[in-house]
């Protein structure tokens, strides 16, 4: 199995719902708490496992606003795991999930340096590395109804822009989406082979530009000349 997420950049509205649901679930999950420094003060700073950034792509009038949520990509070639000196970071062979054993981490930050996607954040209170667990404590929990055995961020997304599934199964929803919508990896040139895949925005007609008629152009010019 190769578990991961597909994120649809066409429909994500950038509401930060997934990031909030992630923080809420995981702060009391296996790697919790996700502590914050100065949470209600002037300069709050804390560990989040999912962040949403917003970009403007292309130039007006063709420009488009794209919201890009990013959590750990559970890379196939995860250098964050190989650099870790303590063995705290590991990749599970059965489903490819990359995790940090909170009891072993010494807080050296090296794994966060090795991650190209900014997916790892040091917990300011515990001094250990925190990262997306793919909600490993939800997806296998048999006490939950079957349709809720999904990551918190996937369940909460109001536009269904996050899809969870097995990339090794060619008929899974994620594999089909990647095929049909030409899913992309971020920064593929670094060779980490990220599992999470992004669906680019669909092509739509560009905004139509207003073309004044010949009569209106002449009228406008005459008005300008006369008023001088």
């Amino acid at each position, binding site marked *: 199995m190769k578990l991961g997420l597909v994120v649809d950049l066409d429909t994500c509205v950038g509401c930060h719902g997934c990031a909030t649901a992630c923080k809420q679930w995981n702060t009391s999950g296996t790697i919790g708490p996700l502590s914050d420094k100065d949470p209600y003060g002037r300069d709050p*700073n804390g560990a989040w496992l999912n962040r949403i950034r917003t970009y403007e792509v292309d130039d007006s009038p063709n420009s488009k606003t794209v919201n890009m949520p990013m959590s750990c990509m559970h890379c196939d070639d995860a250098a964050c795991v190989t650099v870790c000196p303590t*063995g705290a970071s590991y990749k599970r062979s059965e489903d490819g999930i990359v995790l940090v054993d909170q009891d072993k981490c*010494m807080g050296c930050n090296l794994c966060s340096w090795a991650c190209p996607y900014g997916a790892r954040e040091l917990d300011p209170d515990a001094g250990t590395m925190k990262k997306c667990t793919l909600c490993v404590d939800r997806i296998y929990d048999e006490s939950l109804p079957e349709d809720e055995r999904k990551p918190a961020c996937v369940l909460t997304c109001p536009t269904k822009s996050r899809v969870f599934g097995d990339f090794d199964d060619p008929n899974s929803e994620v594999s089909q989406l990647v095929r049909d919508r030409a899913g992309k990896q971020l920064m593929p040139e670094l060779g980490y082979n990220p599992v999470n895949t992004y669906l680019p925005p669909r092509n739509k007609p560009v905004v139509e530009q207003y073309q004044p008629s010949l009569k209106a152009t002449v009228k406008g010019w005459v008005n300008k000349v006369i008023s001088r």
Partner: protein
Amino acid sequence: MHPAFSVLVFTVMSGAGYGLITLMVIGHLSGLSQLQDSSVLLSAGILSFVMISGGLLSSTLHLANPKNAWRAFSRFKTSWLSREAVFAILLYPFMLIYLGAIWMDMTGAVVSVAGILTAVFAMVTLFCTSMIYASLKTIRQWNSSLTPVNYIALGLMSGAVLLAAVQSVVGGDLAGVLQQLALALVVLGAVCKVIYFFWIGKPAGSTINTATGFTQASVRLLDQGHTSNSFLNDEFGYTVEANKLVRLRLLMLGVAFVVPFLLLLSASSALLVIAAASTIAGLLVERWLFFAEARHVVRLFHGDQRV
């Protein structure tokens, strides 16, 4: 990259210590006449021991959870940081045997074997330290064979200046060979550093387009998603004005290379001690620049067009 002071101190001090003990062992075992006096050898050996140990202790200060530091020996097969830790510890018994044998005026195989192993482990540890940085594909300015070359050249260089200083202070007048060696290594170190500056000046690698996957249009950051800083901003967003960097580069080249070179020509003990201090101070600036000029690819997601 945010320069952590404890890491700067660690790499400069232990690098100089490893360079010093290595050159001393080579000079001693190859029979250089000024390096047979046990008081010179012990002074240089103890100085090296203190610098290495002080550096290693300083390196643990940047750990956020040091109680698990002992686990760092466990991933020798994959992690350069783990290898560094293992070799740094392996060095100690041989260095102690070597220095102990000198102290007891022993000669023969024990001294040679312990000395050679000390020098080998010193260089291997220094190499592992440099590979921690050189192996990171996420930081173009580090991901190069120039990184280990720089670390080893600068470690040997600072070691040579220290050795010249100790030998002239403890042993009377400065040995010509040590003076020439230090001069040559200072020139070598400066050349390596200047090549590195030229090399990192050439833009290359990932861009905001490959990072976001939009490779056929311009991409600009509108919002990074949080109003105050995060761990990522603090660690990777460290930015210094370009002209301040240029000034610091010039200052560093002067203090780390030009000043020691000129002072070494004098061969006076007092000036050699100043030369050694100047080298160490210059290398601290050099290490600071090594971090401050390194640009992690996460910056692309936070709006940088290229790294």
